[in-house]
């Protein structure tokens, strides 16, 4: 199926947004940057979802003055993307609140230090002495 350049651009754009988002999420260390990367990834997927309803040369699914303007685009993905966007908003709001809370609790916005301090906290909460490397091999050497 020969695609005019517009669709190629849209689809590659959506996929690349998704990739950039995920790459940012994986590579980033600053928490706010991670939340933003997440937003980018969700935007990418939402774009992909909307494009799944796209039909060439079709009109928006609105009946002007009660008349069907012509072949209409599939309305369902647009409804779905509405929900997806709102979900994205909700999750990002929670993420930002948590970032604020973590900054207050751990005084850092770096994921690396967060993980280290989180695990120290978990160990401390469980009453464990900090993990030290072993001085002797687990198994005593045969006589």
């Amino acid at each position, binding site marked *: 199926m020969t695609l005019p350049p517009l669709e190629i651009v849209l689809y590659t754009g959506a996929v690349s947004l998704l990739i950039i988002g995920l790459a940012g*999420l994986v590579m980033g260390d600053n928490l706010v940057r991670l939340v933003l990367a997440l937003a980018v990834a969700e935007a990418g997927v939402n774009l992909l979802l909307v494009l799944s309803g796209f039909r060439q040369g079709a009109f928006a699914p609105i009946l002007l003055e009660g008349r069907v303007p012509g072949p209409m685009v599939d309305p369902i993905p647009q409804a779905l993307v509405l929900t997806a966007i709102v979900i994205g908003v909700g999750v990002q709001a929670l993420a930002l609140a948590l970032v604020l809370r973590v900054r207050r609790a751990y005084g850092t916005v770096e*994921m*690396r230090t967060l*993980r280290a301090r989180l*695990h120290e906290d978990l160990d401390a909460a469980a009453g464990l002495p900090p993990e030290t490397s072993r001085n002797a091999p687990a*198994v*005593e050497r*045969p006589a």
Partner: protein
Amino acid sequence: MTLLDGLWLASALTALAAGLFGRSPSAGPWLTALYGVQFLLVAFMGPLAYGADPVPASPAFSVLGYGLSWQFTALSWFFAVITAGAALAAAWFMSGAWGRHYAEQGGDLRLLQLALALNPSTMYVLLASRDFLSLFVGWELVSWASFVLMLAAGGVGVRWALRYLVYAIGGAMAVMAAMVLSHALTGSFEFGALAAVVPDLSAGTLWSLVILLSGGFGVKMGLLPFHLWQAGAYAETPGPGSAFLGAISSRMGLYAMLLTLFGVLGLGTLKALSIPWTPLEAHELLAWIAAFTIVLPTFTALKQNDARWLLAWHGIGQGGYMLMGVAMGDALASAGGLMHVFNHATYQAALFMAVTAVVYRTGTADLNKLGGLVTRMPLTFLVLLVGIIGLAGLPPMNGFVSKWLIYRALIDDGQPLLFVAAVVGTLGTIVSVYKLLHNIFLGQLRVEHESVREVPGSMLAPMLALSLIVFVTGLAPGLVLDWLTTVQRELGLAVLAPTLGGVERPDGGLDMLWVVGILFAGFGVGALIFLAGGRARTVHQLDNYAGGHFLTAEVRYHYSDNFYAGLMHRIGPWYRGSFQWLQDSVVAATDLLAQAAAGVYRVVQPAAWLLGVTVLALWWVAA
């Protein structure tokens, strides 16, 4: 309401009573009475051993569409008699002074009584299994019951109990694999179904079945690669518990192996199944494992400095004889193997009880801290003497009969190396049991043991009863061999024609009545010669030849540490503890893997794993 139901009910009642009233030492005699009732019920099922038809148990379930039913056959009756006898002896031993002593020292008598009561009841369920499902249910119950008994010791015992648990669950999983494999082949858990389909199974499947079953049950029997748990577990359990465990607990593995490998797959299949590129068949493989299980643990026992550990290691060694007898499979050998189960149960229980009696009086079982107790505890000495003669398999006792049967069969089959291995095992046993006898009872009596007296009657009675059984079944092995003929017929093995004294054969049979007669006649003549020399004056222990040096009580001249110095010089370097190293390396490998697994969960960015696995999944999909 068959006899089997009665037995189950009685054992359950005993467990309940032990749980409720176990704490008070005065409950001991009542519990012993209950064990007596169990023994009677088993005895009433006696006709089973002479060809009566199996006694079914009334409860039969069907879960997820598979039937679950139980019955007692001659094979199960034989093992049940030993179990009931060992349990009765152990309970009798525990009921009197020992129980009070154990409680005073902070031991939890209720837990010990309950654990001891649980064991025979779960064993009766295992012994009555009729298909793979009931076998597995019984098997797990027995494993867990012995785990509870091992826990009763507390402290070091718990560590050994946990090690046992890992081995036992590993073995149980192997058995489950075999069970499910047979279900995959036949669609049901019945023994008959598998037996029917066995002829047209491929060698590979048969081998996997044999390995899984023998491996799974071998763990409990303490066969070689999986034997490291047994010594510690049985030695560290409190007195009567170790007597019961040592006597019968690991023989449940042999029962299960008999039921499945020999009962279902049949000896013919085992003989037909050959190990690729070697002349050995499956049953010879089992025999060789048994041979190694005889030799290595026995010589490890030689080095032990704790009496209970020495006996526990010998328990493993003797297990090898049973498997070798059964694995050879012809009339003599299988009768020898099966009878050895009975014999070993009797003298192992007596030996453990004797050692416990010594610990009861002196507080220690360390062979380097004892000595010269024969003058203070003569009856216990007699029990230990009879026990070690049985364990070593010397003529007057029953151990000799079963070993003779196995040797005679090995000569018939022409297995020189197995024969030598068995004899080396016997010699090793003689050497090490003498060390046990000498270090505890002979030699110089320690100052602190001057006031030691004989153990009270409640402990002596079971010991003497067991020794009597050892001697009587040695004198007239025919009693036990008759039971075994029905068992052999039931398992499809060649059947032996025993006489009261042993077995009648043109080319060199065995008649224990004659053998014992000649031996005691010889002793009589020897006594005549000896008494010709007039009366001897008994002198005090310190009135001894010491090259002109006067011996005093403080000087400790009892030779007990490194008892076989000469022997150890020669075979010392051969002890490399390779199995211990093997086990530790497996543990270290698991530890390493666990560290890696924990590393997965300490990653900085969890989403990295997400991205990684997505790409790998997509790549796998595309490929």
